[in-house]
């Protein structure tokens, strides 16, 4: 095991960029089996987050018939392993006060343990056990299937989820994984067998598909030794790590879908378009544009117009989920049906104005200072730091990313931001979905 890189993370905006202890230093180590380790020592709270990011998520599913297989496989990880029965696992974790969570997205499965620093040794072993040796017991599968089917039924009744689904169905072609949510559908979840899960697990879970992020009150040397002990003899499932890419996709035609739901009082709106890959040159300019449109101050321009000025909604904001392939940019709002048309018109008008004129000088200046000045706050907690390290790893941003970040943001011009919005948020490709009464 040899250090690959080590870089202090610095912000140009002293003094708020650096912790007093100078401890905001991230290191990376690679194990010979291909597992990557990213570590950051943060001693201010006596706890640790140990997070494995495995590229075994929804984008690995081979067809629509497999939708939800990655999510169900992830959910089964903690239902018993070769060496620890499900009940014993629950008792041991609770006995340490450690929380284990498994979240399955499009690009990665995030299996995390949050524990007291003193328990990191056993927590690492448990994390390795659930990632390497789940048994996928048939009885447990039936039980978990029942829970997932109930969850899916609740999602069918949730206006936000129904609007999101309807939006994705219009925005992405049926063969693209972003066409559907990672959770799968009733029919697919009912169809999966234990063998399906075993096959998926054997194909995709392995050290060279995995990055271990460790943040908290633990040193690098101890972390490295623990990683070696828990994961060192894990054999790769496939010879080379596959990049977690998704195909690019044609841009959709503008359109609108409305789903009527009984018993609801509020309509949830999702309006947006597929955009770009995280690696695209325009990413930072578009991300900055999204910040001004949907986040800056209080939910950006959408919040200012739709909530503050017109009082049409409790929430109206936007987000850019640039990942692999064309990630979505969407505005989300919850509005009374009587105000729906006004809210939609207001959102569209604000977007058009932004594409025409771009950010104001004030917005450009405040947007940059809020993003750069906000870094120490974002990195204050172990979870926050682990999230950033995960992003650095997934998108190969380099360990000096946080040091470079202020300069990246400061270099953006209003013209670049306006041009990116015109290119990627064009009305010709705007898709709208509404679910509500």
């Amino acid at each position, binding site marked *: 095991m040899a250090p690959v890189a080590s870089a202090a993370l610095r912000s140009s905006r002293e003094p708020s960029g650096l912790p007093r202890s100078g401890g905001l230093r991230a290191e990376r180590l690679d194990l010979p089996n291909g597992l990557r380790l990213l570590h950051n020592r943060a001693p*201010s709270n006596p706890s640790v987050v140990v997070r494995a990011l495995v590229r075994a998520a929804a984008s690995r599913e081979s067809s629509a018939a497999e939708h939800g297989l990655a999510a169900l496989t992830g959910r089964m990880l903690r239902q018993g392993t070769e060496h620890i029965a499900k009940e014993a696992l*629950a008792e041991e974790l*609770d*006995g340490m006060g450690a929380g284990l*969570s498994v979240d399955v997205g499009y690009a990665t499965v995030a299996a995390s343990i949050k524990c007291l620093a003193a328990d990191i040794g056993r927590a690492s072993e448990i994390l390795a056990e659930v990632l390497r040796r789940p048994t996928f017991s048939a009885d447990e599968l039936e039980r978990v299937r029942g829970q997932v089917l109930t969850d899916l039924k609740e999602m069918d009744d949730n206006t936000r989820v129904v609007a999101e689904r309807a939006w994705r169905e219009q925005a992405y072609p049926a063969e693209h994984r972003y066409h559907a949510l990672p959770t799968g559908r009733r029919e697919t979840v009912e169809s999966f067998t234990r063998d399906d899960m075993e096959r998926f697990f054997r194909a995709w879970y392995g050290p060279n598909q995995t990055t271990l992020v460790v943040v908290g009150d633990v040193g690098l040397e101890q972390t490295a030794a623990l990683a070696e002990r828990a994961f060192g003899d894990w054999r790769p499932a496939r010879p080379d790590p596959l990049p977690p890419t998704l195909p690019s996709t044609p841009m959709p035609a503008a359109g609108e879908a409305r789903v009527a739901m009984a018993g609801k009082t509020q309509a949830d709106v999702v309006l947006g378009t597929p955009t770009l890959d995280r690696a695209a040159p325009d990413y930072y300019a578009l991300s900055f544009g999204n910040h001004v449109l949907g986040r800056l101050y209080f939910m950006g321009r959408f919040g200012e117009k739709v909530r503050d000025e017109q009082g049409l909604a409790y929430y109206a904001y936007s987000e850019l989920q640039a990942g692999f392939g064309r990630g979505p940019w969407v505005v989300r709002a919850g509005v009374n049906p009587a105000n729906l048309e006004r809210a939609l018109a207001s959102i569209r008008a604000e977007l058009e104005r932004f594409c025409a004129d771009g950010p104001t000088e004030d917005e450009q200046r405040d947007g940059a200072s809020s993003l750069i000045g906000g870094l120490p*706050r974002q990195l204050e907690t172990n979870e926050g730091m682990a999230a950033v390290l995960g992003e650095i790893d997934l998108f190969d941003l380099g360990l000096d990313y946080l040091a470079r970040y202020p300069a990246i943001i400061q270099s953006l011009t209003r013209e670049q931001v306006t041009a990116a919005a015109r290119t990627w948020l064009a009305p010709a490709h705007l898709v709208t979905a509404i679910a509500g009464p």
Partner: protein
Amino acid sequence: MAVDTRTASSFAQTTLGNGLRVITREARERPLVGVWMWYRVGGRNELPGTTGISHWVEHMLFKGGKRFSKGEITKAVSRVGGALNAFTWIDCTAYFETLPADALDLALSIESDRIYDTRIEPEEAEAERTVVISEREGSENFPEFWLREEVQSVAWREHPYRLGVIGPKSDLRAMTRDQLYAHYKRYYMTNNASLVVVGDFDTPSLLDRVRAEFEHLPPGPDPAPLRIAEEPQTGERRVVVRRPGPTSYVLLAYHAPPARDPDAAAFVVLTSVLGGASSPIAWGGARGLGRSSRLYRALVDGGLASSVSASYELTVDPYLFAVDATLRPDVEPARAEAVLLEQIERLQHEPVPADELERVKRQLHAQVVYSLEGVTNQGFALGFMDLVVGDAAAWESFPAALQAVTADDIQRVAQQYLTERNRNVGWFRPSPETA
């Protein structure tokens, strides 16, 4: 079990001549500061006709005062990379800013300005009416909201806790700007507030700055204490909510002791035995704990529910201990209710075994540690415990009291409080058109 010194070192407290309580704690690991302003007003200070008024006033405190015009508060905080928000609860209304340490004065000036000088312009109040109604309507889209509101409404005959925080639409449609302004003037004053500052500062110099911003402000007439006291419940109350929905939900709620009561600690531990631990003193903590808890075993592992929870909040007046379950679509509420009751009766009949109690205490210890990560969370814990217990030192003494709870304590409070006559039962049943 000792609480780690890094999360439990002390704080400083002083009260200004105008009654403003100032609680400070140096936490110098990072160049950040968390500022909280707590007002002792919330749902418990409201009456029918103006229910939801505290929450609406909270929204108005972002709309401008003397030194900050409309929109300026959020803009100024954003410019320095800060974050801000506020929340209203049954017992309090609280505002926070998290900022780079060198921008601390900004937060002090915001709070000093809006305590007395918020304008509440009529047209701004009107625009906010639909925003607050929209906030309520967002919650109305969830079956659990209807069930919780219905159970709350029968659990008390008199106490304002039965009205909740957001308020019914009829009140939200009818309230006037002048009522909002009168409520603001009645409760927002230095002698009804606590300022909490945690972070990277030197205490004497911070206190100089606090005095410069707040000491000249006059106190107001003390708000009248709440006189409504609920008589003990004298028999089980049951409600059924029938609405379109995905599945059935069951909720059991019992009147429970307030934060100051010596039984509060036993109640937190009892709740954790049933549903897994969460931090009673602050938000945040680890997810995924509590799979060895009794309700998870009996209902989720038992194939009856997709999720369960147990809750008990630290409150000023007696509030509710509750257990709830989201049932699998083929499970009848009566069956799930019987299993929930079985688990509650078990607590009354047998002491919790030592190893199980130890496991639960360890969870509570860990969740408290996790919940104190960061200046904002620490500020919350100090301000919240000051508000509900009347003493910020409870942010350390209450977690310590949890570790001293015995199996006998748990059995005793289960027998005393979790009785049929003190019980409120609610079922949500999907109405036929969507079942």
